[in-house]
């Protein structure tokens, strides 16, 4: 069994920084995209791919026994692509073709268009159902892979999320692990102001899920939670890790400013962001 390249804590922090920088460069070059939504999930995805959580083989992207990772919040595509490139699925140079005509590095992920892109997402609310399907398939095929689905908070307003939540508990999908990037903002404003989600943890619990809450930027909290969730599969209860995050994390003037949703940085902003990100450690 092959696991992802294992990094220690310092290595993971450095990897998260590199991913953030790649996200910046990709979206700045493209002149569009969702850097702030990608940055809020960066530590989560870093832990999954580089902290020894996901089992995958970059040289065999569709290895039948791979753990599944489904980026349900498809607008965080730059983060997914950056992680896949760093993991070795394809060349990092390709990242800079994001959103260009003829490039497979699509604005939102399209299943199979790049190696390791497991699902077509971008119309929100759909990833959890796909994850459940992969899991029911694993059970039927006698495979023991786990399925991880990264959800945005805003997409939890969609009914399909709760249809899938109900069905996952019914089917005792203990190997289905959701991670909810709870950055508290949706496109048009604070979630609490637009369509409030609270009490969010209670909602998941009442649907039959085991809920863990972590600081979504602290790898010393995320990684143990991801590993614990994996160990709890025997409970046959689907697991939801609610990761409290900061939208735009890492770039001071983007953090918690929802007006940056879906916007690339201009040249001047990008330079400042580059300096700030490079200064982090």
């Amino acid at each position, binding site marked *: 069994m092959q696991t992802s390249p294992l990094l220690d804590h310092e290595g993971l922090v450095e990897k998260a920084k590199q991913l953030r920088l790649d996200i910046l460069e990709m979206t700045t070059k493209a002149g569009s995209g969702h850097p702030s939504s990608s940055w809020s999930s960066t530590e989560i995805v870093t832990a999954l791919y580089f902290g020894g959580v996901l089992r995958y083989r970059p040289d065999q992207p569709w290895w039948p026994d791979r753990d599944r990772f489904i980026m349900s919040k498809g607008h965080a595509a730059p983060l997914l692509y950056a992680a896949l490139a760093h993991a070795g699925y394809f060349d990092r140079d390709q990242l800079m073709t994001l959103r260009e005509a003829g490039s497979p590095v699509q604005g939102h992920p399209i299943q199979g268009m790049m190696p390791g892109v*497991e699902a077509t997402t971008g119309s929100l609310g*759909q990833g959890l*159902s796909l994850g459940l*399907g992969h899991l029911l398939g694993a059970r039927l*095929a006698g495979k023991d892979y786990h399925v991880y689905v990264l959800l945005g908070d805003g997409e939890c307003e969609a009914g399909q999320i709760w249809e899938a939540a109900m*069905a996952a508990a019914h089917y005792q999908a203990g190997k289905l692990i959701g991670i909810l990037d709870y950055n508290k903002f949706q496109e048009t404003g604070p979630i609490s102001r637009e369509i409030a989600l609270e009490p969010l943890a209670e909602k998941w619990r009442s649907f039959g899920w085991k809920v863990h809450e972590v600081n979504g930027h602290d790898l010393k909290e995320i990684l143990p939670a991801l590993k614990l969730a994996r160990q709890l599969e025997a409970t046959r209860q689907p697991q939801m890790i609610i990761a409290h995050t900061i939208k735009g994390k890492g770039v001071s003037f983007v953090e918690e400013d929802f007006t940056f949703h879906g916007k690339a940085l201009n040249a001047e902003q990008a330079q400042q962001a580059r300096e700030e990100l490079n200064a982090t450690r």
Partner: protein
Amino acid sequence: MQLGKKAGLELCDLPLRNIFGEALLALAEENPKVVVLDGDLGNSTKAEHVRKAYPDRFFNIGIAESNLVGVGAGLAGAGFYPFIVSFSSFLLCNAYDQIRLAVAMSDINATIVGSHGGITLGKDGPTQMGIEDLALTGGLPTFTIIVPGDPASMHAAVKAAPGIQGPVFIRSSRIPMPYIYPMDDCPFEVGKANIVREGADLTIIGTGMMVSAGLDAAAMLAEQGIEARVLDLHTIRPLDVGAIAASARETGAIVCAEEHLLQGGMGSNVARIVAESHPVPMRFVGLKDVYVESGDPWDLLKKYNLTAEDIAAAGEEVLSQKRE
């Protein structure tokens, strides 16, 4: 009124949905990768045949079509071949975006079965009727779209589906249909229209139940000395461009008949081919921008001009234009 009677066809004693259930069961027996996803209508669609025989490969996802489609697509990602089965109206109208992303745009190998297509489910009324399913699936570029019009072709379509690259839509129906083809020797080939009656004066192109109705209409026209070719256009995409163009060229007039809205249905697709290849006078039998009320299927077909008589009348009309 009995479908296929004037044409001398024998009516199947089971509704087409039951034939679908039998065909699905036969496929599940043969192919262990086939899984069935039900939107809590398995007893109506007859997908339940598989539930009884292979409960581990049957998933009732409940009254939640969006999730139903997503879970089905996920099972395809896990290496299985999903048949996602519900009423045509509920699947396509509730879960269109899920079908668009997870099935069509992802270009997965899977079959969506829209049962209770058209208006002939009758008394349950317009909320349950799938009168827009061909237009909706037509809006999904990767889909192969099949509308079987008899028991043998339903069996053949279900059997063929897993071998088709990309997603497939099969329309099923609540009413019994006559046998057009022998059960043991159906000339069904995806994307290839069948000439089920030869004639030189005009062509009736039918899909689904309208193939039998078209044969009835041809029998009625024959009594007046008019010989109609009848084409079974069971595959709406890919369209058999060659057969359509040849019919236009060889018979010089076309009537399209479908149990669907005229807008975006089979006829509009055929008209595009005719216009581009060999323009000839055409007429269209189908639903004209209307929601149909509850009622006995045969009363509704009559009221909304979807009978053999209506096809025959359209044939006479198109012939008079041809002769002008």
